[in-house]
């Protein structure tokens, strides 16, 4: 096998595709991929697994929302955010609350590459950038 970077990425993407079943990440398939790589002593296994890990992490992040908050957040609100995001992204989304006093007030929700900003800190940053 070639040691070139494109080949490593291509192989990692193939393994990633194998880990997806019906558009969802399958824990069993991931375990199978890891067992296959371990068993076959693939060349550049570390490099391939690093790329594979990044792809899996990005996929996991698409189904997991981190809700940063300055004040208290109820379970009902978290569930409502999770429901709204599930509807938007057409996939089940789990929510995790994370306290962040730097926000001053409001919420910041991060899911995958998307960031939903509704905090005082975010608005102040926009204000300072535009003045």
């Amino acid at each position, binding site marked *: 096998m070639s040691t070139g970077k494109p080949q490593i990425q291509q192989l990692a993407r193939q393994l990633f595709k194998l880990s997806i079943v019906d558009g969802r990440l399958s824990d069993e398939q991931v375990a199978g991929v890891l067992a296959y790589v371990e068993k076959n002593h693939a060349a550049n296994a570390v490099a391939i697994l690093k790329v594979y890990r990044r*792809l899996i992490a990005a996929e996991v992040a698409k189904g997991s929302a981190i809700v940063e908050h300055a004040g208290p957040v109820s379970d009902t609100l978290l569930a409502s955010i999770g429901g709204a995001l599930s509807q938007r992204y057409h996939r089940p989304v789990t929510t995790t609350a994370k306290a962040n006093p730097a926000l001053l007030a409001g919420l910041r929700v991060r899911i995958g590459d*998307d*960031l*939903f900003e*509704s905090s005082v800190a975010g608005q102040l940053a926009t204000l300072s950038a535009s003045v």
Partner: protein
Amino acid sequence: MSTVIEQIEQQIAKLSTKTVRKNTGVIRTVADGVAKIDGLSDVAYNEMIQFPNGVIGIALNLGTDEVGAVVLGDVSQLKEGDEVHTTGKLLSVPVGKPLLGRAVDALGNPVDGKGPIDSKETYPVEKIAPGIMARKSVSQPLFTGIMAIDSMIPIGRGQRELIIGDRGTGKTTIAVDTIINQAKINKVGAASGDPKFRPVYSIYVAIGQKNSNIVRTIAALEAAGALEYTVIVSAPAADNAANQYLAPFSGAAIGEWFMENGMDALIVFDDLSKHAVAYRQISLILKRPSGREAYPGDVFYLHSRLLERSARLDGKGSLTALPIIETLAGDVSAYIPTNVISITDGQIFLETDLFNQGIRPAVSVGLSVSRVGSAAQIKATKQVGGKLKGELAQFRELAAFAQFGSDLDAKTKAQLDRGGRIVELFKQPAFNPISIELQAVTIFALQKGYYDGFDIKKVTAAAVSIREFFATRKDALLTEIRTKAALDKDIEAKIVAALDEWKATYAG
């Protein structure tokens, strides 16, 4: 103070309370002005990306799981792991008349220390060139003020005329002369009060040049009173490759605003060789496949899409482009020169040999051409200079032939003599453009044999004297030539009378 508070209050009022969505990514690597970013799954090609500390970038490579972006700012402030986000906007620069007389960088920020620019409008840096239907054929002249060019290689408004030559052959001087001449014409036009007069605004884009050279150019324009009609876009050699790559497009956006708003503009790209080198650097760092001379495959498209934005629009204005290309040892068949030659509507080729012989501007008449031709010439110039190019070409051929033999017939000697006089007549000092009416008179005097009595070496001095005589004593006649733009029998008789008057007083 209260104004500042009002501005902040207005800004607060504008801030919406609803949630803002941003598409984010994380910097994986930063090197040589290019950042590789993970994430940014919704980014568009050429979209502006917001980096930390107010730094801006442009997405140029959209990969499967990575985005390559050029950074337009201080790269040293960025580090691996920094979060970036999309802006949903294409890169735009401030445009409009407030930019006249100012020097800006590739992003339109002032760099001349004259304070902020009060520009209300912005214009996208990258834009599709006007299509076929929007265009009109080039027929209005754009006078460079250089006799050799205006009489033999005329340039029209909306044309793209390449200035090509080795280093130190006077390429920038021709461009600066043209800008100075536009300012002179603008001032005369404004003073005349003619409602049909259309001023030409100039944009000078300096790419990869030494800062000292840019300062010298600005000083020359200021000394000639041309800076007030000119915008300088500066991306000097000290700027990163991304800014040098963007500068011509920013200049084109500034020029297009004039064109779209019914005005005429002239843009000088000084020079596109360095622009191609900057683009090659970016492309190689982005790991795009390289082709001939390591330039990327789309280097032709880079320049064609830039120069296609120069046009004359039906019912609107025009944008004339003077791109400059530097050749090595006069090799016009190199990659970038041939590309740009094929894109433009003609070229002014400057020769080192002519320059060293003291023939300045060192325009090679044989290799220079304007594809617009006499369509962009006024009738007066056609009348006096219609045959000059042919005569000069014949002279060059005969001069080469005459080197091998001393016995020449009278006709050949006469042709060589006349050619020598034409060459002398076209010598012109830098930053001293000549108005079209004075050019017409100078060449008219040649056609009528007024220089025949002088030694060839004294023809230039005689021509200068004629121009001074007409400028100081025959102003009404010059105005008449300018207004009518043609030489009728009446005007010709007046010119002959004035030339006789000059000859009686000129000692030679």
